[in-house]
């Protein structure tokens, strides 16, 4: 793995082997053996082993050694023989011993449950084939899902089957058993009870589960002296702490984007980030579905430092270095007549002031229907000020409400983690029980939790993976995946869902409930009973059994959402703010700021071992398999840096080596790094990619810090980007225009060069097959609605058994995604306008790929689909060469994963492709066939909307519509008749079946004239 950052090895603590030699050198006889026994227990040694003998990298090595050579010889000979062979290996049918009712082999079933991100639930419907979860869809009844999913939900099913999940109970790194842990724990029970659990500490992740909360409460009642800390590396505290500042109460804001006509986002990626992303994006997009006759749409002003997908969706965007964002908030406050408690010197340029003036005017003009949306990673003061401004505008109750936080425990976990560290130093911690979160890896570097842990006697760690923290624990307990056990969870708005298992635990791991039950001294209580016990009597409905069934069936507990509260604004807010501003560090122009953010695809690192997410190109950068230090072109010029440069990134004396990625649109004078990479343990897929930003992140400044330094040290290998060319120039791929032009003339508000000359066709009558077919499939994609969140990409991968190829193959340009989100930017590098374009097989009527195939491996069928017959393909790749959209993907090597655990996820209705065949989007033909056969069996036509493609059903904003073009009533036909519908590369007479609706932007009046100074 040439791509592994050096830092991974540099920052490893002093070589334990040396230490070992030193220690053993002096000893003799019995002492020596004692010493060795101690050492065998030493986590440092364990970690050293793990790091010195890493598992092989997933990517295949090129070099051929003798053994491989023999294998190859055999393989090629077999290949030669295979040609004539036609008989198949013998297969078995294994019927049930006792077939469950309702289970019909061949018919998938769906169960409602919920998956959590940062502790908060998103409702899901899990598709199971003979009780084997294979695909995750959104739950329409759930407020955080609305029938759609984000990319993490899609990928969770792969984590479930991850062959590298922790499989065994380890005591001191030695194989042990659940019972052993229970007895170990109970042995200490009396001692713990005696001193009320002093020295007993519990460290969990973010928790919204009502059951777990009560369980922890019970545990704390048993051990009054014990303490509960929680740690969520990607958790932003701004909202709740800001509420404490503004209202003196711990409340959580909920944003109702569907009610807002004007939104000003303060460093908030509310469209593609976090557990509330789906409703926020849906609401925002619902106000800008441009159809013929639409004259109005909402407007988004975005102020941000990093260039996020939300920034790309914004009609007006102001790149601002972090230190200026509070200033911008204060400026807006002043303009809107809110006491900001800040001085006048805000260091904003005249252009920035004018920009803010427009935003302020827009907010005022839409008072009551506008929203100032502060990002969760902004400091409390900014949030408090934002609350004040929203109240001044009268937005509370319409576009923003405050509710009791769905997450339980202290509002400031980061502080509580710091307390824990101090407590350890003070020797107050004797037994530490950690529930996931991988704190050793993800805790702020200043806490140096790894070495601190060694001071704790009993270190219990419960986790899905045997990760960095696991190698420090002397008791490791494998966790049950969320799809494996009973639980419950609340959504961003407080509404609760019962989480039900879709499959028995693969590695008999415990759910947190089962573990807490043990800790509370009642082992062996089944998870389901724990959950039911909690909810008995809490579910409304006279018949409890019926109520329980309903809750399970709906995947949401009726009216469990929290009720909004509107406490009065603290009278002394300006003074509090003044104090807060006073604590701000001044940011000199030349100093560089650093921004820490969770990674768009692997979050805080918990998804590091998920190949789907690793290979999913990140929005804006289009990078895969790695993070990078993102800087603006201007900054790159100033520092003399370019892509592929490896820099030493220094903050407060801590150093990490990071590759540079120049990102047009990023704010100048600051660098963004994403958390979650630089993993060393926890799976072959995740380890050895990117760098760990945690290593330079301190409790004092978790999200942004002033005074970072970049020093170029060398040129590194190319980063695995899925796209290098982001200018489309004259080419008419992703088209966009402004609202007023759309109002005036929707037909021509986008200019199409080829529109002038008429389409001439040599063979207008075509093949003359397929007269009056009932079904003819087509798709429409609304570019105004695509927020570039990648949910569709991962959904496609999950549905269609698309293989993961690994970083090295992506670098070579061999990623296998059937659906990709192309990015195209227009305008200057410091103020670019990015537009997302989902690109997939266009199923051309006159497909260039088909007539060049020598073996009829790709042909048209009677439903107008451009079908790919894998078993006929011989792999000439001519079709790919002749595809103008380059949406065909080729299995250059054996990419399909043969691991039998992982294979459990494969969709049985989709062929797993072999080496050497071409593949591409099929419009989810397996779903079409199912619908068609069902319709036939019921003797009726296929209904509109009966077939949804994986990408369509996953899309949070419903940007994708799919349907029957021969059904005049179908929605897709209506969309294709929209004035601003167009086909990409129509001028080639490919007659694509996918039409795009051009993107409509809604810039603020007088914004065009006002160009930025730079």
């Amino acid at each position, binding site marked *: 793995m040439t791509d592994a950052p050096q830092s991974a090895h540099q920052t490893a603590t002093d070589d334990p082997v040396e230490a070992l030699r030193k220690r053993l050198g002096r000893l003799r006889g019995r002492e020596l053996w004692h010493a060795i026994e101690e050492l065998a227990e030493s986590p440092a040694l364990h970690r050293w082993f793990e790091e010195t003998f890493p598992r092989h990298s997933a990517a295949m090595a090129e070099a051929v050694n003798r053994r491989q050579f023999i294998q190859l010889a055999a393989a090629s000979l077999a290949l030669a023989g295979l040609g004539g062979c036609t008989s198949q290996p013998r297969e078995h049918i294994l019927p049930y011993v006792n077939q469950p009712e309702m289970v019909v082999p061949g018919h998938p079933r769906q169960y409602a449950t919920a998956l959590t991100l940062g502790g908060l639930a998103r409702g899901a419907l899990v598709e199971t084939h003979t009780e084997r979860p294979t695909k995750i869809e959104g739950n329409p009844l759930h407020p955080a899902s609305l029938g759609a999913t984000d990319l993490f939900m899609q990928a969770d099913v792969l984590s479930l089957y991850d062959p590298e999940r922790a499989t065994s109970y380890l005591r001191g790194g030695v194989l042990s058993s659940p019972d052993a842990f229970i007895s170990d724990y109970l042995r200490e029970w009396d001692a713990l009870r005696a001193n009320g659990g002093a020295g007993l500490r519990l460290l969990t992740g973010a928790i919204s589960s009502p059951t777990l909360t009560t369980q922890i409460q019970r545990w704390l009642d048993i051990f009054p002296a014990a303490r509960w800390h929680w740690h969520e590396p990607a958790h932003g505290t701004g909202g709740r702490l800001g509420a404490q500042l503004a209202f003196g109460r711990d409340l959580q804001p909920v944003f109702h984007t569907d009610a807002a006509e004007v939104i000003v986002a303060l460093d908030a990626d509310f469209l593609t980030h976090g557990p509330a992303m789906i409703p926020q994006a849906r609401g925002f997009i619902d106000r800008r579905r441009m159809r013929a006759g639409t004259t109005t749409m909402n407007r988004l002003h975005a102020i941000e430092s990093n260039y996020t997908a939300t920034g790309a969706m914004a009609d007006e965007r102001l790149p601002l270095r972090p230190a200026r964002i509070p200033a911008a908030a204060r400026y807006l406050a002043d303009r809107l007549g809110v006491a900001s408690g800040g001085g006048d010197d805000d260091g904003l340029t005249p252009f920035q002031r004018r920009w803010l003036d427009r935003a302020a005017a827009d907010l005022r003009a839409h008072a009551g229907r506008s929203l100032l949306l502060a990002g969760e990673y902004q400091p409390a003061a900014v949030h408090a000020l934002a609350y004040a401004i929203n109240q001044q505008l009268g937005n509370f109750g319409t576009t923003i409400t405050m509710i009791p936080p769905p997450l339980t425990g202290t509002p400031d976990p980061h502080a509580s983690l710091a307390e824990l560290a101090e407590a350890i130093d003070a020797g107050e911690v004797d037994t530490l029980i950690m529930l996931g979160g991988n704190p050793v890896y993800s805790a702020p570097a200043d806490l140096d939790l790894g070495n601190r842990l060694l001071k704790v006697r009993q270190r219990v760690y419960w986790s899905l993976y045997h990760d960095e923290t696991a190698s420090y624990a002397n008791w490791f307990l494998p966790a049950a995946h969320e799809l494996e056990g009973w639980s419950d969870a609340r959504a961003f708005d407080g509404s609760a869902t019962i989480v039900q298992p879709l499959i028995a635990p693969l590695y008999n791991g415990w759910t947190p409930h089962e573990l807490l039950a043990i800790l509370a001294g009642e082992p062996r209580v089944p998870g389901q009973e724990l959950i039911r016990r909690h909810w008995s009597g809490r579910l409304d409905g006279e018949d409890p059994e019926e109520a329980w069934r309903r809750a399970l069936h709906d995947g949401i507990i009726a009216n469990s959402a929290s009720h909004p509260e509107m406490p009065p604004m603290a009278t002394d807010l300006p003074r509090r703010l003044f104090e807060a501003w006073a604590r701000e560090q001044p940011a000199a122009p030349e100093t560089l700021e650093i921004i820490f953010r969770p990674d768009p695809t692997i979050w805080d690192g918990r998804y590091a071992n998920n190949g789907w997410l690793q290979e999913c190109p990140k929005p804006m950068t289009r990078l895969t398999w790695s993070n990078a230090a993102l800087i603006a072109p201007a900054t790159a010029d100033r520092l003399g840096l370019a892509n592929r440069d490896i820099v030493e990134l220094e903050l407060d004396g801590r150093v990490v080596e990071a590759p540079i990625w120049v990102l047009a649109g990023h704010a100048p004078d600051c660098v963004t790094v994403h958390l979650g990479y630089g993993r060393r343990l926890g799976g072959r897929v995740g380890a050895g990619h990117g760098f760990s930003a945690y290593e330079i992140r301190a409790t004092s400044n978790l999200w942004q810090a002033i005074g970072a330094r970049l020093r170029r040290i060398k040129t590194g290998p190319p980063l695995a980007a899925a796209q290098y060319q982001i200018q489309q120039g004259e080419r008419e791929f992703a088209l966009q225009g402004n609202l007023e032009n759309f109002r005036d003339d929707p037909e021509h508000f986008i200019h199409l060069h080829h529109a002038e000359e008429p389409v001439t066709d040599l063979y207008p009558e075509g*093949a003359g097959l397929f007269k009056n077919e009932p079904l003819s499939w087509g798709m429409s994609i609304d570019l105004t609605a695509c927020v570039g969140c990648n949910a569709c990409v991962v959904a496609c991968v999950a549905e269609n058994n698309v293989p993961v190829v690994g970083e090295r193959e992506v670098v070579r340009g061999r990623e296998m995604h059937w659906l990709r989100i192309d990015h195209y930017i227009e305008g200057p590098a410091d103020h670019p306008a990015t537009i997302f374009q989902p690109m997939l097989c266009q199923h051309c009527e006159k497909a260039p790929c088909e007539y060049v195939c020598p073996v009829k491996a790709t042909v048209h069928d009677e439903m107008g689909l451009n079908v790919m017959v894998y078993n006929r393909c011989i792999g000439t790749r001519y079709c790919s060469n002749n595809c103008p959209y380059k949406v065909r993907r080729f299995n250059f090597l054996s990419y399909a994963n043969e691991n039998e655990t992982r294979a459990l996820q494969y969709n049985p209705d989709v062929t797993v492709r072999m080496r050497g065949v071409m593949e591409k989007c099929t419009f989810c033909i397996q779903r079409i066939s199912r619908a068609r056969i069902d319709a036939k069996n019921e003797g009726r036509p296929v209904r509109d909307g009966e077939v949804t493609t994986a990408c369509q059903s996953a899309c949070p904003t419903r940007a994708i519509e799919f349907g029957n073009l021969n059904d005049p009533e179908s929605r897709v036909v209506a969309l294709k008749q929209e004035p601003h519908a167009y086909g990409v590369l129509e001028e080639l007479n490919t007659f694509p079946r996918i039409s795009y609706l051009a993107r409509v932007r809604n810039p603020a009046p007088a914004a065009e004239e006002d160009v930025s100074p730079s």
Partner: protein
Amino acid sequence: MEQGLDNVRSWGLLAEFAEPEQLIAAVRRVRAEGYTQVEAYSPFSIVEVEPALGLPPTRLRYAVAAAGFAGAGLGYFMQWFALVYQYPLNIGDKPLHSWPAFLPITFEVGILFAALTAAFGMLARNGLPRVHHPLFAAPHFERATIDGFFLSIEANDPRYKMPDTRTLLESLGPRSLTLVREEFEDVAHATVAPEPRP
């Protein structure tokens, strides 16, 4: 010299000349004498010999043409049968019977058939392969592929008569003159020494 060799029927007489011109002259002379079973042998093709021998033009080219057209027809039919008749599929929405696309293969198959006919037809009409031939037993005949120019009159020629024929040939001043014998199993490779030149 015929006595004592009666059990061996003679195949004919073979005269060797040093220069092509002599051969041509000889052929003309022998033909003038009315001999029909005459053949000339040379290391390279000597065009002038053929009219002298009164050979009719070969009909090979007609066979080749026929084969060529047959092949082309077959090639076209194969494509039409496969793409139009037997399993019609919508491929790039091209017309099923897209004849322009069928032409290259039609042409190639035609050429293939024609070429093979030309080559094998030539061999067949020449009665090749024939690795054994009475002539190969004749002394010096190996020079027929190097620098010798031979003339043969077969014994089954109605005008073939000893010793007249032999005298005739001798009169043409051959480098050597041989009586070539039909062989029988018992006397394989029977040959006679060349006559000393006068």
